[in-house]
């Protein structure tokens, strides 16, 4: 959370995250670039430019694969949520690695001609009507362009400027970009390989991304089925005995939005489940120091009014609640973001004052 924009709001966990990431990338590149040539028994070495391009290209693919596995892993197992916390830095680093790959390729294969190397990239191969020999470079250009757009707009400034839903939609471009990378590799280097280690790793990585997303989608669908509400003036959320102090129950409303009903100090309050930062699932967070804390990036809100504590300015919609016997019911019509709502006392929980 921030009240002003700084390039990076460093904290201990971000430092650890970035150092581990950099160490992994450095080790990959070092081993590929400097250890493997000694093992290869080639009569003459691969050109350094091609060797470098391959190292950075392979590294970018592995990084992108890992990045895309983090999301579904965190949905399937909450212990992976810390990997989500600083994933943007991972993405920006991947962009730099991918740019390095592209630079080596352009400065080698597309240089030394009388034409401009960037123009040559577009006209050297125009066999668009065939699969084998297709100009696979266009897939790389698309993927790299998307990565650059995502890296440039990764800062919170752009999220605030574009609004979270628009920003999120733009960043979903990572999926067509990954598919484009898969096409780039499949129609390019894979067509030339006699050794199949890269083919196996490539297929395994791309399959892992696909399978994990499928599993996460099935998992989410099952959860949604259990919490989907039928249209009504007041919607049953749960029995109050199911509520736990400091935690929430989530309900999927008929309009497709999710509401998170929290029990704090023995009183019930409801806010939107979508964090104003990146639409993180607030209902899967918990109350820390009287504030709902998002499990993704730790953004906090007062559960009674949906407002972030001063000096922060983020707000989420609130909802009206009522008790019908021991049933907790919510009005599906959201209040404007930041609207204070009186909490509803729980008949089963002791009402306390102060921090949870």
């Amino acid at each position: 959370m921030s009240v002003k924009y700084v390039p990076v709001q460093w904290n201990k966990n971000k430092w650890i995250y970035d150092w581990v990431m950099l160490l992994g990338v450095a080790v990959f590149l070092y081993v590929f670039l400097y250890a493997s040539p000694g093992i290869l028994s080639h009569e003459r070495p691969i050109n350094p430019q091609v060797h470098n391009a391959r190292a950075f290209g392979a590294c970018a693919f592995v990084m992108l694969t890992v990045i895309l596995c983090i999301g579904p892993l965190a949905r399937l197992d909450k212990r992976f949520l810390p990997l989500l916390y600083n994933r943007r830095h991972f993405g920006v680093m991947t962009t730099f690695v991918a740019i390095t790959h592209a630079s080596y390729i352009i400065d080698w294969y597309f240089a030394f001609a009388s034409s401009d190397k960037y123009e040559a990239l577009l006209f050297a191969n125009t066999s668009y009507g065939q699969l084998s020999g297709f100009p696979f470079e266009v897939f790389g250009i698309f993927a790299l362009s998307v990565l650059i757009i995502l890296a440039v707009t990764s800062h919170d400034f752009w999220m605030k400027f574009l609004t979270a839903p628009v920003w999120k939609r733009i960043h979903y471009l990572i999926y067509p970009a990954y598919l484009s990378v898969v096409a780039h590799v499949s129609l390019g280097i894979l067509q030339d390989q006699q050794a199949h280690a890269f083919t196996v790793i490539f297929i395994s990585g791309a399959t892992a991304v696909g399978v994990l997303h499928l599993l996460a989608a099935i998992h989410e669908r099952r959860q949604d089925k259990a919490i989907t509400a039928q249209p009504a003036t007041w919607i049953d959320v749960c029995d109050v005995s199911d509520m736990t102090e400091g935690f929430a129950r989530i309900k999927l409303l008929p309009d497709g939005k999710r509401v998170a009903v929290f029990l704090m100090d023995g009183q019930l309050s409801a806010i939107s489940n979508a964090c104003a930062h990146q639409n993180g699932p607030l209902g899967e967070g918990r109350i820390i120091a009287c504030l709902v804390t998002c499990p993704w990036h730790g953004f906090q809100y007062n559960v009674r009014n949906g407002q972030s504590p001063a000096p922060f300015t983020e707000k989420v919609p609130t909802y009206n609640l009522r008790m019908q016997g021991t049933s907790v019911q919510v009005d599906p019509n959201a209040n404007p973001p930041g609207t204070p709502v009186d909490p509803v006392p729980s008949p089963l929980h002791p009402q306390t004052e102060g921090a949870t």
Partner: protein
Amino acid sequence: MSSNNKPFFVGYLSAPGPLRRFLLAICVLFIVGFAALGLTLGVAQDDPGPGAFRFDYGRQTVTGVIELTPYPLVRVTIGNDRIKPGTTLMLAGQGKSSVDKRAIPLEGQLAKVSGVVLQRGDLNMLQLRGGRNGISAVEGAASKQTREPLGRWKLAGEICDGKCLAGAMRPGRGLAHKACANLCLLGGVPPVFVSTQEVDGSEFLLITGPDGDALPKSAYDYVAQFITVEGDVERRGDLLVFRMDPDTLEVLE
């Protein structure tokens, strides 16, 4: 839903104890995994072949007869320790450029050529120095090269640019290199057909259009692909010239 016995991570706070061991294991797995992948992928690269710029030979200067196929060649008449008389060298300029402008006026004449040799097996090329330092006419009678027709052949293999194939780039062939090969061919570098089976003792044939003209543009779509194509093969000294018939070109799966 959430339960209070599970550790909860907040980015700007210290990680809860039970989660630390898990995250430490992930960190170790990440670094070791990246090292293992770097090594596996690094050692899985194919041999790019023996082609190379022979800088170790030093600058080579020989005299010979300039011929056009239409791509310029020199048939060496006065060689040296490295390049024997009778050797045919394909000629190319710096980068992805031809030497047509300098060689065409000298067709059929004796000339002194100077540059760096590129060599891959029995495929030889000379990258000429700039201007008259690279190629210049010399006095003397130029003997005519005999041409020995070897008949019509159906060959399987790959169209490459002769320079990258000969060693300007390693690897210098294959689909990942297709755009580069096309750029070389557009620049006038002699194209070479790499046959899967030897033809009269050689797997490399300089490839031209059906009438001995430049490689047809329609063939550019099939550069670097595994194809079959028919045409007439002719021996010119130690070099084979393959006049392809573009209508017979087929892509092999």
